[in-house]
């Protein structure tokens, strides 16, 4: 299966008003170049996830435009990693990863299985655990399966909604490194929603602060890639970390 070429994302004056008149997003402009990675950070309830859901086509914006429109993309060109692994408990790991291919009707069953096994291997999921059901897997293993499921269609756009938020620090660092490694080998346009400033910097080419439904600031991350975990100990990382903190504080005023 040929990977789909990375696609740029362009949001123009995107607004979302929830029933009751609350503006969750108010005129957001966001550009993610093809193959680029933007991290969205901000306090809870600021509209990060709503923006991601709009890009995914799960939430219709009240105003503004988003390109590409999800329905204009081929099926499977866009993938979403949820905060919880969201695996189907009655399917084993392999069949959970095969699910998107089944739903979009791509490949013969043998090809789907081969693709699922390939991606489980790519995310470091053990061969012996492939027949296990979600109830038998640890949090980290479930998140690896969830990542493999998102990648199995070789999407052009990958949207990640606080994917590692529920994991402990060590596991979180490992999976962030895995995500960076996967991006280096299979570049695709990514948007990462996170509360973790360090994660936002390490993963992103740009960090955007969102506050009360607006983009409160942007900082380009000039750290060279690859970005191993030890980058976090460097002066450049510390400078960026402070800058993002200042940007978030400024946005909150």
């Amino acid at each position: 299966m040929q990977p789909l070429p990375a696609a740029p994302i362009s949001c123009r004056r995107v607004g979302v008003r929830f029933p009751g008149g609350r503006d969750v997003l108010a005129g957001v402009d966001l550009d993610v170049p093809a193959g680029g990675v933007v991290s969205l950070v901000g306090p809870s309830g600021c509209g990060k996830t709503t923006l991601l859901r709009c890009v995914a086509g799960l939430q219709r914006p009240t105003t503004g435009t988003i390109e590409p429109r999800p329905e204009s993309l081929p099926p499977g060109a866009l993938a979403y990693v949820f905060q919880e692994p969201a695996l189907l408990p009655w399917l084993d790991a392999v069949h959970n990863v095969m699910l998107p291919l089944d739903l979009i009707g791509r490949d013969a069953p043998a090809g789907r299985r081969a693709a699922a096994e390939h991606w489980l291997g790519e995310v470091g999921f053990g061969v012996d655990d492939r027949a296990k059901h979600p109830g038998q897997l640890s949090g980290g293993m479930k998140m690896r399966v969830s990542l493999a499921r998102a990648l199995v269609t070789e999407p052009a756009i990958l949207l990640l909604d606080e994917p590692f938020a529920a994991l402990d620090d060590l596991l979180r660092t490992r999976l962030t490194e895995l995500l960076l490694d996967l991006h280096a080998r299979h570049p695709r346009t990514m948007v990462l929603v996170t509360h973790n400033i360090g994660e936002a910097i390490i993963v992103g080419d740009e960090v955007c602060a969102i506050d009360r439904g607006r983009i409160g600031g942007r900082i380009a991350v000039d750290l060279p890639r690859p970005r191993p975990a030890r980058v976090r100990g460097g002066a450049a990382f510390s400078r960026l970390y402070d800058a993002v903190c200042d940007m978030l504080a400024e946005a909150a005023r």
Partner: protein
Amino acid sequence: MSRPRPPLHRLVLEALPALAVAVAVVACWQWAVGHWKIPAYLLPSPAQVATALWEKRVVLGHAFWVTARAAVAGLAAAAVVGTALAILFSQSRLVRTALYPYVLFLQTVPIVAIAPLLITWSGYGQRTVILVSAIIALFPILSNMTAGLLALDPNHRDLFRIYRAGRRPTLVRLRLPTAMGHLALGLRISCGLAVIGAIVGEFFVGRGGDFPGLGAVMDRWLTMGKTDALMAAVLLSSLLGLAMFAAVNLLTDRLLGKYVQGTGD
């Protein structure tokens, strides 16, 4: 992926308190009947009930079999109709709001009031007994299954939307598997009701002739004042309900067990 079974000795240990209560109740009952010289037509002793059970074993055995068949058929019919209606309800809010009040209405109508009507329409036979059993057993299956089909995990629903899964794949690959736990619960509630429905149906059907089910023989023995045989039939009815519950538990555990597991999210 069925749940691991507890070892046999643990099951026996868990059953011991209930068995001890049963032995104590039977002993007190036997003593009370002898002590106060209660006439057998009012309250036969456990020994008299056991004797009646042995003497009427052929009639009771056949009656047990007839009622069991009717209850199983009623439960199966309720499961099929309840699941089909629940699927229909899950696919359209309009259908749900249009029909669900009538399902509730059916649930509130006393079955003893409509059983004579059912006999008028369906005759004095096994078919009417199954019909009464199915009507009583339908509601828990229908309401549980409808709730299960509509109770999707929001992330699962979004996942299927992202991959543009249509109505049918969403029903087959997500809604139905999600609802299996609810179906199992509905079946467990309904299996006892199916037995009650079959016996109620036989009460009425038995009045039209020599019907062999437990409900019909109970009604006959009641009018003949054979309280010991009547109580033996009551005992068998309870055993039938317990057996149905155990069978449904075993079947749902084996067949639906993997759908009832948690995600561990």
